[in-house]
């Protein structure tokens, strides 16, 4: 509907413009006629304009004033309509299209399963919401609307010009196809060059960024000079490639400019000849024609822009729709079981998991955990620990077998209920650039200050939070408000326990913390684990020992299971790891006379 409205306005604008131009031409002719008949009087031959003849009885100045008034009136209307038109198009495109599309993508992104984020980099996802949406906008704005406008106006101009003089119209427009071919060729020629240029510039900027991020490395090996040379080389390559582009651009635009001048030449010679032989009026004919030709050329130039935009915007649009059409792999089943409060009994029955067609990440995992038990998982990088934990809140769905919580297959449970009952602490605690309170209350934005503080106390974070410049209202990430790894992890624990979840997932929570501050979070962990079914990925004996059950993963299979005291007695990977760490323990306890393990 809006599109029709927009086009209607455009058509009216066009007609008004033509009338305005014609009035000017008529005015000129009128003046010339009055003058050539030397002296005012009714002897003036009527000047015809669109079958209307000017009233003969009027005084010349009155006629001119009327014409002038008409031109002004028309242009006022045009100005107003133009304004309305611009606003309408922008509201349509900027407010409706772009906002809706971005919001829709964002919403979709929030729901897509982890596989999607494993497969796409942050950068490319962000470009899709920002840049590629702009491309879609460009498609609607510049391609769809503009090309329709262009077709309409070119047709109207051509018809009007032909009505003045078909021969002159043909002669003047003869260069147009040449210009089109030229633009298309140029565009095809220059596109890859521009693409390469973007790459070169990106490389250069990335090199600069890396050199500064890694400046300590550069300096510690004294490689400033080599880096400068490399940068210089990248910088130079941008320059020389640009020079090539400049050559083409500077070849194209003068040629295109020259083509329009040929039009003027044709107009002057052929049109002049027509005027001289009295087959065309000077004002309403030639001058009007010159004006039209000018606007025609303006529209023709748009063709090149539109052709360029089509390609770019289609690529962008495809990337946008890729996200919108991406399948949400994990979602609540149609008739889901509602369980607002879970007990925390977890059962893996012959669970396997694989990414696409690749080798399975997990093989036939069978495991039963009673409410309140603590399971520690030990394994090397890539053994499937994180995936195993990710299956519980359905970050991924099992490929084979099933996973039961409180006796219900997780795929049949309402997703929100399931996840609200699970608290997760990730390997590297991601905190948002927001206040401490907002971060802790992330899963429950309406939490009261008392609830937040309670969670913080459990996570042994209350004290250090009070020590921050603005306490709970301190914004993280602002200069000077950076937290240590241990502090961040304790906030993440507070965030997880605020929900009072029945199940707690701890993915190697001490990974990003140095060992001097590691003990800070053990107290927090102990209190958080209390009374909840817990899965914890760990490497250190200190953590492994406190588990009710330890499972050792190797290449996606459980190779050992049992308690610490059981596993320490049998040869196997667990004993091997334990020995590596116990060497430390035993030696250090001797001088202080500590208890032997």
């Amino acid at each position: 509907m809006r599109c029709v409205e927009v086009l209607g306005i455009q058509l009216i604008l066009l007609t008004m413009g033509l009338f305005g131009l014609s009035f000017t031409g008529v005015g000129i002719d009128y003046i010339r006629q009055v003058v050539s008949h030397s002296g005012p009087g009714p002897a003036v031959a009527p000047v015809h304009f669109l079958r209307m003849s000017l009233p003969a009885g009027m005084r010349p100045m009155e006629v001119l004033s009327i014409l002038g008034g008409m031109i002004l009136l028309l242009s006022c209307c045009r100005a107003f309509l133009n304004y309305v038109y611009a606003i309408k198009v922008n509201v349509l495109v900027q407010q409706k299209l772009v906002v809706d599309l971005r919001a829709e993508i964002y919403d979709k992104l929030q729901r897509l399963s982890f596989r999607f984020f494993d497969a796409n980099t942050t950068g490319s996802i962000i470009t899709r919401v920002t840049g590629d949406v702009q491309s879609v906008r460009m498609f609607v704005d510049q391609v769809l609307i503009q090309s329709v406008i262009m077709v309409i106006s070119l047709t109207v101009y051509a018809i009007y010009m032909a009505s003045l003089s078909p021969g002159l119209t043909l002669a003047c427009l003869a260069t147009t196809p040449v210009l089109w071919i030229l633009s298309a060729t140029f565009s095809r020629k220059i596109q890859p060059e521009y693409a390469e240029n973007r790459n070169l510039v990106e490389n250069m900027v990335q090199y600069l960024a890396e050199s500064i991020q890694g400046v300590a490395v550069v300096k510690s090996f004294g490689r400033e000079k080599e880096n400068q040379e490399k940068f210089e080389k990248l910088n130079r390559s941008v320059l020389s490639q640009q020079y090539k582009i400049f050559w083409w651009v500077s070849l194209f635009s003068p040629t295109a400019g020259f083509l329009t001048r040929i039009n003027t030449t044709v107009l002057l010679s052929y049109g002049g000849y027509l005027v001289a032989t009295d087959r065309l009026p000077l004002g309403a004919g030639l001058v009007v024609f010159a004006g039209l030709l000018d606007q025609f050329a303006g529209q023709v130039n748009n063709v090149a822009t539109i052709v360029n935009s089509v390609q770019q915007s289609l690529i962008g649009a495809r990337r946008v729709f890729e996200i919108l059409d991406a399948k949400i792999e994990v979602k609540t089943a149609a008739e889901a079981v509602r369980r607002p409060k879970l007990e925390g009994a977890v059962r893996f029955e012959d669970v396997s998991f694989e990414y696409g067609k690749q080798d399975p990440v997990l093989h036939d995992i069978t495991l039963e955990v009673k409410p309140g038990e603590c399971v520690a998982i030990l394994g090397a990088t890539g053994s499937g620990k994180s995936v195993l934990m990710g299956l519980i809140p359905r970050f991924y769905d099992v490929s084979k077998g099933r996973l039961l919580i409180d006796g219900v297959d997780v795929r049949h449970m309402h997703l929100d209920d399931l996840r609200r009952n699970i608290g997760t602490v990730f390997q590297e605690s991601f905190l948002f650039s927001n206040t401490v309170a907002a971060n802790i209350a992330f899963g429950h934005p309406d939490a009261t200050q008392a609830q937040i503080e309670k969670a913080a106390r459990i996570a042994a974070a209350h004290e250090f939070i009070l020590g921050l410049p603005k306490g709970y209202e301190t914004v993280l990430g602002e200069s000077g408000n950076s937290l240590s790894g241990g502090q961040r992890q304790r906030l993440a624990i507070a965030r997880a326990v605020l929900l009072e979840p029945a199940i707690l997932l701890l993915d190697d929570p001490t990974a990003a913390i140095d060992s001097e501050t590691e003990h800070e979070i053990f107290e927090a962990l102990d209190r958080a684990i209390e009374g909840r079914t817990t899965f914890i990925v760990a490497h250190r004996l200190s953590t492994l020992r406190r588990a009710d059950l330890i499972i050792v993963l190797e290449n996606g299979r459980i190779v050992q299971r049992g308690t610490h005291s059981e596993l320490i007695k049998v040869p196997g990977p667990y004993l091997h790891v334990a020995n590596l760490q116990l060497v430390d323990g035993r030696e250090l306890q001797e001088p202080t006379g500590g208890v032997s393990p």
Partner: protein
Amino acid sequence: MSDMDRNRAVLVHRIRDEDDDEEQFKPLEWGLVRRMLGYSRPVRGKLITMFILTAIRAAQLPALVWVTALVIKGPIAHKDVRGILLGTAGYLALAVVTDFMFHFRQRYALEIGETVVNGMRSDIFDKTLRQPMSFFHRMKLGRILSRVTSDVEAVRVGIQDVGFVSAIQAGQMFFAGVVLAVSDWKMFLVVVCMAPVLWLVNNHFRMKFSRLTRAAQESFSRVTATLAESVNGIRVTQGFVRQETNAGLFRSLLSDHSRYNIALARSSAVLAPILELNSQFFVATLLVVGGWRIFHGSLQADDLIMYFLMANIFFSPITIIGNQYNQGLLAMASAERIFRLIDTQPDWVDSPDAKELPNPRKAEGSAPIAGAKVEFRNVSFGYDPKRLVLQDVNFTAEPGQTIALVGHTGSGKSSIINLVSKFYLPTYGEILVDGREIRSITGRSLHAQMGTVQQQNFLFSGSVLDNVLLSRPEATREDVIEAARKLDCTDMLAELPNGLDTIVGERGSGLSVGQRQLVCFIRAMLPDPRIVILDEATSSIDAMTEARLQRALALLLKERTSFVVAHRLSTIRGADLVLVLDQGRVIERGTHPELLARGGHYAALYKQFVQVDDRR
């Protein structure tokens, strides 16, 4: 409570940047212009040619229209067919010359712009990299990046367009003005009256555009910041079922951004019609006033046609120059920011009489030398001299010794290794390397004998080989393999998908933490350094890899003087000297057994460590 609610109503707080407070426009300043043009020295000839081409083009454009007008009002109006042909031939000739010259005028302008931009980028990189570490402590990467991207682009527009285009347009206006005034100066006065109005209206709106554009950009940066964190934190969001809340917050950010865009569109929707109305108003006036004067015989009817054609040539430059002027102001502000970065004085540079630190290992035939001697004498240091983070540190590392630095975060461990690396200079006291004051040694020669492994295990994007060669670019592939062999970890190297040619992503992505650390070890080993600096990674690596790395580490430290910020028990146990730091002071020193036996601070720290293992 209301404050809290407000904070919850956003997902991400936008962190203010110093750049937010920078001025956006800056008045034209001759000194800056000259300095910018100074960068065009490599294409000096083109610059001079450009001045000539600009002057010629300023005359050519109005001349073309003038010839058109002459042909219409002369031969065509008087039906002189031969005159028409001659006139158009003249027009065509002029057109050929004009467009031929335009090729050079355009190409040279672009090339000059690119040359200037190129030179500036080089200078920024060069000057920035020469800054001591304290500079990078203060300056955010984003700010430097915006200098080499957006600011440099603004300067490019300033160089390639503003001056030349304005000159051409001004010339065109002048030329058209002369033609009009000569043919009828009274009519010309009517034309001139409208010029200032046009100028003022245009500039008012352009300024408004810039302000709105900036506001729109700012709101957009909020959108992208939120988006980036949303994507990075997607696991948290889904884990805590926050999808809907987040989507609502994001939508309100989007409508905020679109509000600015609409405001921007609204003012341009006002400006464009006003400009057009103005020219139509002019046409109507010409028609009435000109007609009146013609009827009174004071103007030739044919001259009116010329007025219609030439008036446009007279008016169009006003808006163009106005826009260019704005661009010029933007370019000035950008140039000033760039030059401020380039001109930033380094806090310190190597003193001119600093000498190279001789490398005894390079001397032929000498026996292997076990590292350098490093001595701290009453060293105090603060990143900000008023707030010392190290106080009165004294110790001597004999050649070949391993010094372990132990203490809580912020106790001064990193400051000590920063000083040994000569990243910073001591505020008080002195540091001696092989008996020579560190200030009298060139940084480059010192670093050439130093192998450093940093905590983040930073790798550049490129191949593993490229990354290793960073420490000794002239080394061969065989040298690298030899270094790996000395660390007894050729097998780990072989486990990489493509061995030494494995491609590392940005910031080491694609390699595991253990593999990254291994590459850093080999990189430090390659130049056969006398001093090794090691900030142990805090992130835990799985136990098997850890054990392998420990062995490699021991081999790396062998027969070298080393400084280790230690997080691993085994490293501390192997050290010849453990310095226990607390709030910038060395509170205990000795070997591991000595310190334990003393039962002081270290022993307590240690117990805590052990207890972790023994709770339960």
